[in-house]
């Protein structure tokens, strides 16, 4: 494939002060091409949300570079920055937080239309807003409503509409359905799948729910403690997870209820999972790992790449 849309080169983001430093992203290397549908799966604190906000250009990494079509995002300004924002958009996790309580739907949708698309006339804006609502399956009457008059699912759809305003090539979706009820969840996720096809768009879904990742994406990156510990196509990851953490996630993933083993099963994790991964030397997953070997306490493993994807483990599961 030609030059990638987005790239992370050794990106690190560290929070905290001396005593306890949390590496939300630890020398992450990543490549996203146009049209790709990838998921980043992991628990909270694994760095997923930080990754999402980096992709959207909201956070500056302390080290490493984030490239958009080969150019460092942080050096962009003016027209080039606008091009970036038009092409890469983000949908935030909390729809209740993502809308300005003082602006109605029309005003909210008009922001990208005005500043990214350069629209100015009222007629132009109105027409564009109506079209956007239609795209996400919402009635035009909602244009005059304030956020508190909308349901959670409706708010999330409005946020998706806002992201679509500039006809982006790529959307980053941070936990798109975790704040929504079952009624609204499936609908919003289906909307994503549909839009990707009709608008020829790629997306990166950030989620802690591997079932959602599998439902929406072709490639899955599993994150743990600031690192991408395994990358594989969805099919391969689901059937042959190689990293012990991926294996655990899949073991406890939501499955169709009739196939769920409903008898009580005790968690067979090594040790207590209440530990601080940032204080562990070597591989940060070691305290939980049933397959740890000598090398694991020395240094974090480097990636092993093959046609299946990549995995960061000294003793991956083989099939």
């Amino acid at each position, binding site marked *: 494939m030609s030059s990638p849309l987005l790239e992370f080169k050794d990106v690190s983001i560290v929070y905290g002060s001396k005593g306890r430093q949390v590496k939300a992203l630890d020398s992450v290397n990543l490549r996203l091409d146009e049209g790709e549908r990838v998921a980043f799966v992991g628990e*909270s604190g694994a760095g997923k949300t930080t990754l999402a906000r980096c992709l959207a250009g909201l956070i500056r990494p302390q080290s490493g570079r984030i490239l958009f079509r080969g150019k460092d995002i942080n050096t962009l300004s003016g027209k080039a920055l606008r091009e970036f924002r038009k092409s890469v958009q983000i949908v935030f996790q909390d729809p209740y937080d993502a809308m300005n309580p003082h602006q109605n739907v029309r005003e909210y949708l008009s922001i990208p239309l005005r500043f990214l698309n350069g629209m100015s006339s009222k007629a132009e804006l109105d027409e564009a807003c109506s079209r956007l609502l239609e795209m996400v399956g919402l009635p035009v009457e909602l244009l005059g409503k304030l956020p508190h008059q909308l349901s959670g699912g409706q708010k999330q759809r409005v946020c998706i509409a806002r992201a679509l305003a500039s006809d982006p090539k790529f959307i980053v979706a941070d936990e798109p359905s975790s704040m929504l009820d079952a009624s609204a969840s499936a609908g919003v*996720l*289906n909307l994503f799948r549909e839009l990707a096809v009709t608008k020829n768009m790629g997306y990166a879904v950030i989620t802690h729910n591997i079932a959602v990742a599998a439902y929406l994406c072709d490639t899955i990156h599993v994150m743990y403690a600031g690192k991408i510990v395994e990358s594989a196509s969805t099919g391969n990851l689901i059937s042959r997870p190689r990293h012990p953490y991926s294996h655990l996630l899949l073991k406890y993933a939501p499955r169709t209820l*009739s196939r*769920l083993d409903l008898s009580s099963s005790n968690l067979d994790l090594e040790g207590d999972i209440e530990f601080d991964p940032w204080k562990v030397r070597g591989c940060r997953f070691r305290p939980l790992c049933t397959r740890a070997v000598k090398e694991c306490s020395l240094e974090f493993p480097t990636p092993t790449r093959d046609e299946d994807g990549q995995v960061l483990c000294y003793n991956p599961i083989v099939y």
Partner: protein
Amino acid sequence: MFMEVERLRVSFPSVAGLLRAVDGVSFGVAEGEVLGLAGESGCGKTTTALSLLRLVRPPGVVEGSIVFDGKDIMELNDEGLREYRWKEVSMVFQGAMSSLNPVKKVGYQLVDTILDHTRLKRQEAIRLAEAALKKVRLPEDVLERFPHQLSGGQKQRVVIAMAIALNPRLIIADEPTTALDVLTQEKILTLLRDIVRSTGSAILFISHDLSVLAKICDRIAVMYMGRILEMGRKEDVLFSPAHPYTKGLIDSNITIDKRGSLVQPVGGSPDLVVGDVRGCRFNPRCAHATPECVASEPPRLEYRGGRSVYCYHPRYVENE
């Protein structure tokens, strides 16, 4: 059934009319069982739970009967309530782990909870607190820590310790695993199962997550807009749901094996019940609705195995 709830109604006056948060709910909890209360946000699950402890404050109005061990909870005086709350029935509130007092040591909060509900001396309360911590498998030094020094899972265990400290016969757990990661969730579920096994307490487990309920409950009741639509053994309700809403919920649940197919959401969204609403609450969204569903309350149909459905057109039930 040591806890029997009959025709429970909780209403709140509002500008728009009388808001019926709980609108005629009847169920029972047996000793040592885990009864799940499933439903989306706003369906009345939490309000139902609060009424069991008489925690619904005015202007909320509670009607109906709640009978625990033969005692009518609605009739208890202050003394009776003090003996009942926390000692017989306790609760893990929704989001409790985020509501721990950030400036007080965890130990203090645990001991204070015990002291609030008993007339024990501080020393005895501390002993009970230590015992409770042991039951939730937290080390004793947690007593000396502040909430921000604990992880999400640890905080949740502290809150559970508060709820079991006085060995209640029924623990109400309101979304106890919702904000937690998958692995931590599993740990908490294992813990709760152990508590049921070792102490014989029953749990009323409230959650919107069917996968979680599937792992821990014996029976499940499905609530929608203030009413119970279906109730029965977990296997019956989840494998062969009788009510169209239950089936819709199960179908719209995203699971690993559904990745290649299209998951069908339940169209529309739930509403608040204001004033008097006739007929089945679910009919605006139901594909099988007929005129009688709109006109009047669906009947309660009972099946073998303690199963009941409130529906004119139940699906997927074999023989009665």
